[in-house]
């Protein structure tokens, strides 16, 4: 995959520097810095209202920060117009928290629609490739003909993932991939995230609350708090952190249970 001439030599896929965001007088981000390296599963965590999803929305160009620089694949995305952003948008896929599948289309049409918009594939290939993506996310073959309203929550997440994967993106953004799922479906998503990363050599950036998902899938985790990144590293590094914001996050009752579970399964 060729990158533009302005790409820095480093492997950073996402490079966020000094991002500030305000809603009215409320300061959400006050100088956020983070880098996501190629091929890693990077997770962004933080309490409710800490601005995780807002940061994600800024990276995928749905919202503009008040100040700072965000580079994706080495290209500055702050201030890009929709037209300028199109080539970048084709290189990443986004899975929204509640799926955001088009309710008037079947699952296969949801995936096929992206292919039809951005490629010149003939209809039969679009159907076949859509079926491949749907199968890759672990959905049964007959799910393709169903409408989103006929699917369970876990299946809807997988369908949303299939749509995010439609154009074989290099970078995948997942917003709360396991939120609202039962533990069994959630652990299915854990494995899916890792296996897709390995098979498709993806870079994955996700926002999540799910400690089990973090232990099982994330290579590196950044903790967002008080408008800044207060801790960054692997889960075992963060678990030993003494930071006043990071510590309670990983050492609450649920944090400890997830940690014990993680050690048992190793």
């Amino acid at each position, binding site marked *: *995959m060729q990158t533009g001439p302005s790409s820095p030599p480093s492997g950073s896929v996402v490079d966020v520097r000094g991002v500030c965001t305000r809603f009215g007088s409320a300061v959400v981000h006050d100088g956020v810095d983070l880098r996501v390296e190629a091929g890693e599963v990077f997770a962004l965590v933080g309490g409710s209202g800490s601005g995780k999803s807002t940061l994600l929305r800024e990276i995928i160009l749905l919202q503009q920060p008040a100040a700072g620089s965000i580079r994706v694949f080495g290209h500055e995305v702050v201030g890009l117009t929709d037209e300028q952003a199109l080539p970048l948008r084709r290189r990443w896929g986004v899975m929204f928290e509640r799926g955001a599948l088009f309710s*008037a289309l079947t699952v296969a049409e949801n995936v096929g629609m992206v292919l039809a918009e951005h490629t010149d594939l003939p209809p039969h290939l679009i159907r076949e490739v859509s*079926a491949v*993506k749907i199968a*890759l996310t672990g959905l049964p*073959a007959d799910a393709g003909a169903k409408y989103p309203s006929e699917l369970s929550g876990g299946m809807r997440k997988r369908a949303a993932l299939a749509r995010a994967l439609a154009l074989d993106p290099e970078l995948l953004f997942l917003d709360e991939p396991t939120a609202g799922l039962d533990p069994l479906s959630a652990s299915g998503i854990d494995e899916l995230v890792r*296996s897709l990363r*390995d098979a498709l050599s993806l870079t994955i950036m996700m926002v999540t609350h799910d400690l089990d998902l973090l232990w099982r899938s994330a290579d590196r985790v950044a903790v967002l708090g008080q408008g800044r990144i207060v801790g960054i590293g692997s889960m075992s590094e963060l678990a030993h952190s003494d930071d006043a914001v990071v510590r309670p996050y990983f050492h609450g009752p649920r944090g400890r249970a997830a940690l014990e579970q993680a050690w048992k399964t190793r």
Partner: protein
Amino acid sequence: MSLDFGAELTVAGLATGPVTRELRCHGDWSVRTIAALERLLAQVRWPEGGDLIVDGAGITALDTSGAWLLHRTVAQRAARGGKPRLQGFRAEYAALLQLLAARGLPLETPLARVPPWLERVGRQVWSGAAGFWDYLAFVGESALALLLALRHPRRLRWRPILHNVQIAGVAALPITGLLSFLMGLVIAYQGADQLQRFGANIFVVDLVALAMLRELSPLLTAIIIAGRSGSAYTAQIGTMKVTEEIDALRTIGVGAQDLLVVPKVIALVIVMPLLTVYTDVAGVLGGMVMAKLKLGVGFDAFFDRLDDAVQLSSYWTGLAKAPVFALIVALVGCYRGFKVSGSADSVGAQTTVSVVQSIFLVIVTDALFSIIFLWLDL
């Protein structure tokens, strides 16, 4: 065979077996190239029962789409009795191909079945008939909920009723007033020429007053309210259905009928006659203004004639229709909201149906009223 955007394939025979072919792949096998690559592959004549060796050493990029094309080609050869073999693939590409092979995908994705026209006609008719039955059931349930509510007036939800009166009635005053004023103006203007020809200028009062009071003002009001409030009811209830709020109400033990339908019906039945009286006045005013401008009929003369021209029965026949129109608009609007099924498209479709159906029913009912009033000699 090579493509100018960086993908290539060659098919060669091998010395080891006369029917064995080697497919050498080069370049970028991805979603950008597979449409063209597939056309090239379709031109290749494979010998019957021959083995296939796929050499992927030259592949520089392979995504799931490219992998699918290779996988399908290989699987199709295998289905014809050949023994395919992969060689030279980079480890990650081989893993991707393995992943696809492990999923056991069907080689052909069948098209969704399009039913023959007779079946479609049958289904349409059946769903129309079932829809009518459904609507009757809904009207029955609503009537029951309404009667129960009226038996216990203390349990009536006055806040939503008043809110609906505000939204559907007070907020509709400017538009209904303006439109019926213009309607009165236009009727007087159109009639003026004819009346002047006979020197019957003063009969413009009869023309405007009877037309507005008996027919146009209740009809106009009902049509505006159907477009304004009926559509809003459908969209509101429909969206609540999509977001499962209706189910939530049911689990809390609050009937959706009680909370959503009954207040709307009561509010519209209160508001529509009031609006009709108001549009009566606005329409006659419009006629009055035009009568003075075009026919020289002064306001005093107009009022004098109004007394003789309009019997009380004309006023009441117009007003009597209003609550019936209100029931139609409110019930159709709410019913269509409950018919929404799961998708944003469905909200739009049902809102359209709601407005069209309620206007249609209002006009049909108006015709029925005319016949009944004729029989009753009103």
